[in-house]
């Protein structure tokens, strides 16, 4: 047990030694704090859906930042409120989609690798079919079929998001199957399910964890891109992509609505950067080749 502890300590030390992963970690903490404190920073109206940005004015013209609305107003909505609550929306999208799609991927990959034969063949061909449509286009098709709304966006992203994890897990398990500890477990007569979940998965799951962290950023980008194109969250939803999409109405006069690009845009870049840096750091820390 104590050996385990020193190992964790050593890994943590290595993770925080790199200035980039440390910076990423600090950024991430900042976003978590903003997400938790969102109701205190921008209290929603009583009884209203907090994810709906309240109307500040009925005029749709952009209004430059002022004391009351530090990030300005676009489409009648307060950008500061949207950016703060958008942090919550981003965590919701990133974590839900990446975790559920990874879970589906693990299950499919594990069954496929362990069963082998025609089951494996069919499952992998289905995976290929899902992979043959570019992610963004696939997600667009799904959201047009399911309808608008953030929930539907998440479902669309999950449906087309599990394949890479499935392949990764399948490859790792195929490799692990020939390892001695699996053969030993088999010789002891342990059943297949137990071998997969108790012996093989704990030994192969780590690359998946890294994959999940590295994907959260790009998932948030894709969800925002869908909102930006007008097939994602409903207008007025506190989501960075939705605020950015208001700029599409002011394309020829972007200098009058720069704040509607700059503030949600910066929030998004930093959020994605944070996850990418942390994912990168985790990979470097746990990659045996880097030791």
């Amino acid at each position: 047990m104590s050996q385990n502890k020193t190992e964790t300590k050593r890994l943590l030390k290595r993770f925080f030694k790199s200035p980039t992963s440390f910076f990423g970690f600090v950024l991430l903490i900042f976003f978590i704090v903003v997400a938790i404190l969102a109701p205190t920073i921008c209290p929603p109206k009583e009884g209203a859906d907090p994810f709906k940005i309240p109307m500040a004015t009925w005029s749709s013209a952009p209004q430059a930042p002022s004391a009351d609305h530090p990030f300005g107003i676009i489409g009648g909505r307060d950008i500061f409120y949207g950016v703060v609550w958008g942090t919550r929306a981003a965590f919701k999208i990133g974590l839900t989609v990446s975790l559920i799609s990874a879970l589906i991927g693990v299950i499919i990959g594990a069954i496929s690798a362990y069963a082998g034969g025609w089951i494996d063949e069919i499952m992998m061909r289905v995976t290929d079919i899902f992979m043959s449509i570019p992610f963004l286009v696939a997600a667009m098709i799904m959201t047009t079929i399911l309808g608008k709304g953030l929930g539907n966006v998440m479902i669309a992203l999950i449906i087309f998001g599990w394949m890479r994890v499935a392949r990764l897990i399948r490859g790792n398990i195929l490799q692990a199957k020939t390892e001695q500890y699996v053969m030993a477990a088999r010789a002891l007569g342990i059943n297949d399910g137990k071998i997969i979940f108790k012996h093989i998965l704990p030994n192969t799951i780590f690359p998946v964890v890294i994959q999940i962290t590295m994907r959260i950023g790009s998932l948030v980008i894709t969800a925002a891109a869908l909102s930006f194109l007008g097939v994602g969250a409903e207008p007025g939803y506190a989501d960075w992509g939705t605020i950015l999409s208001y700029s599409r109405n002011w394309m020829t006069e972007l200098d009058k609505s720069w704040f509607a690009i700059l503030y949600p845009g910066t929030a998004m870049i930093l959020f994605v950067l944070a996850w990418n840096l942390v994912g990168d750091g985790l990979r470097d820390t746990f990659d045996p080749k880097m030791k």
Partner: protein
Amino acid sequence: MIWMLGPERLLATYVKSPEALKTEDAAERLIEKYGLDKPVYVQYFRWLGNLLQGDLGYSNIAKTPVTQAILERLPYTIELALYAIIPVIFGGIWLGVLSGVNHNKPLDHGVRVFSLVGWSMPDFVFGLLVLLLFYTILGWFPPGYLSYASEKIMRSPEFTTYTHFATIDALINLRFDIFVDAIRHLVGPILTLAYLWWAYVLRITRSSMLEVLKKDYIRTARAKGLAEKVVINKHAKRNALIPVVTVTGGMIVTLLAGVVIVETVFNRPGLGRFTATAATQLDYFSILGSAIFYSFILVMVNLVVDVSYAIIDPRIRLS
């Protein structure tokens, strides 16, 4: 969801002018013709059957068959992708090699920060920032495809269209003003695509370069007194580029899908904007048609990548 509407409502998405419904039984005839009263699966297999004959259905937003709509818009997208892919690949490889060779020196750190930011940058945010700076503030590179004046000349009978690529056609017709105009409209989207993808190509090249530089044959090459330039260019770079080729295939496909966003931001009338508009207008045949088209390209590109592997890496050819 649209399939759940009744046949009459579905018909309404097909018919745009009241003229078509003038005669008494026109509505019934049209419903009959398109099989709109049939169950969803019958309609689906009908669509599949048509697909095999190259008929992707009728596009509502383009008011032409989907196949024709895609082919008409394709040149705009290919032109953009071709111009973007050149700086992406060469610039990315150049920066990656530079960064790998100068490992852990200030230059390497600079390149890494540059790529990290690009890697985390959403394409539409960067596109909007480019528009804000270069169009609204500086007025250098406008969005769209061509200025109104150039477009008028291109449509006129004196101007012969050869390739449907504005830049090339302008050069063949010796209209340098149109050529410059077309380039000005291309700079914004190319800059956006290039910066985001540099980050990616650069990362792959850099890590593969670092790995190759540790190999024994590099030490041998240096030990026998070869110039550092020869070692890098002839021995290291060639081997380091193998993983880059793998990702290039996927990149071309993602680039073509990425134009959905970039073309929407820059208002370029290509396939990407067509797909985006189809999605917002719920034009199912157009979306499915574009998706099938994208998948087709993906499969073809993967085939080319597999073949080019053998050309680059003799080990694969021999096994």
